[in-house]
């Protein structure tokens, strides 16, 4: 994700996980779409990692990830492939939330 003008590249409201490539990342993309209805989910595939983001807030639910993976999943197992993220994070046993306090 690069822009024409680097001077304004920080003027964004992007939030979301940066995942190592693999089946978990694929399940997260699906979960991001299902758990954030009406929001545009962007995926920037860098081969080693995938930047999955949307504006202002993104919620990922354990159940949705589980269903997309087709196996039981504990929310904190996300860490195995969560290399980075944009925005702030709030971690809970049944969902994880990426968000920003200020919209610009």
């Amino acid at each position, binding site marked *: 994700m690069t822009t024409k003008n*680097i001077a304004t590249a*920080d003027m964004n409201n992007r939030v979301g996980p940066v995942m190592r490539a693999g089946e978990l990342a694929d399940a997260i993309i699906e979960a991001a779409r299902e758990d954030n209805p009406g929001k545009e989910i962007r995926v920037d595939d*860098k081969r*080693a990692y995938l930047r999955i983001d949307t504006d202002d807030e993104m919620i990922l639910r354990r159940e949705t990830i589980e269903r997309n993976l087709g196996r039981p999943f504990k929310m904190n197992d996300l*860490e*195995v492939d969560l290399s*980075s993220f944009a925005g*702030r994070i709030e*971690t809970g046993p049944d969902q994880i939330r990426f968000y*920003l306090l200020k919209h610009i």
Partner: protein
Amino acid sequence: MALLNRMDWYDIARTTNWTPKYVKESELYPDEMCGSMGIPMEKWEVYDEPYKQTYPEYVKVQREKDAGAYSVKAALERSRIFENADPGWLSVMKAHYGAIARGEYGAASAEARMMRFSKAPGMRNMATLGCMDEIRHSQMQLYFPHEYVSKDRQFDWAHKAYDTNEWAMIASRHFFDDMMLTRDAISVSIMLTFAFETGFTNMQFLGLAADAAEAGDFTFSSLISSIQTDESRHAQIGGPVLQILIDNGKKAEAQRQIDISFWRAWKLFSVLTGPIMDYYTPLEHRKQSFKEFMEEWIVAQFERSINDLGLDKPWYWDQFLHDLNIQHHGMHLGVWFWRPTVWWNPAAGVTPAERDWLEQKYPGWNDTWGQCWDVIIDNLVEGNLAKTYPETLPVVCNMCNLPINFTPGKGWAVKDYPLEYKGRLYHFGSEPDRWCFEQEPERYAGHLSLVDRFLAGQIQPPNLAGALAYMGLAPGEIGDDAHGYSWIEIYKQMRMKKAS
């Protein structure tokens, strides 16, 4: 036995501040080690870590991460990366491991300081896991290159570099010692975890992982992106600290610490990460330019998070954006020129196709940096290898300990930023470098750059051989052109075509 849900016991288990009976609070938490800026204990207790992890969860997840990284390594042993990869790519690995592997142990020590001396219990928990993370990083990044040591002595520098006075190592150590080893717990949480780990480590551990995957080195790609999943968690130690500082009237101090760490990290990455992304990584495997990775990770992601916390852009932000176009080109030219003094073989990266790429990514490159390379190329074409080596020392900045360099060509405007402090004249490569020094002169004043040491007579005999011995570069370790100058053939052919 039914297990309690983590959230039902986490807060109670975390409440580990009690009133000391046998010592005073100031003895339990000496200010030099805590750095709590006079903010009372109860204000630290509101600290709520956003990225929660319990010890049993930690063990399970880390085990899975290690199993993943080691099994990728085992599975790909036969891909013979060492034999098959471009020599430029091997240099990427050598520079990375040497500059970083042992620094991870330093980071473990910094995490341990937060673990012991933070007044916020949640912060102590996070730092306990962070400390174990950093031990893992050091051990893996020593173990993975070890298999290459018998094939190439430069890989021995993964372990050796930190014990030497090699110039890039002096620069690296000066930065990491400043951020990690000589700061109190609160400063570490800001300067290391927030400013460095939520920002710059992404460049070296994810941006570079993208290039590694393109280059077919999935072992390295998997290793460093796995390491970054630990960083992603423990880098969150700093965020709530910044919130507490802002809420208690210490915003200016928090900002100052970010500004120091950010600038220092930027300078180090301009010599380490810039050249490997834009010159050493084979052209066809470059996922993005260094500047584009910086835009993605540092400008769009990191600066945005600074803003969300209610902090400001570093005061030198415009200069930083400007320098993103130029600084690392000068660093690269210098590293290649002084190539006997590094523990890897720098790839020149200036064939006609690569220059086209550089011109496209950095308009004006041919008219500036390209002009210097033209002279080097002329000398190589004519067989004057001796003329492509330096005869003098560069002027080195007393903050970043890197050569002071500016854009060559028509706009050449080299400038020293001097400062006299207690009778000694210091030289800096930029206003922000000098500003860092001025924030706490006594912290830095006693340090001698490599050139200072040379002039003080500490390097004997005072010639290249003496310098190489001083820097610990043994035969077989001394750097040379990564491709053995084979890339010059295309220029020879171009000349012959022109002549005929």
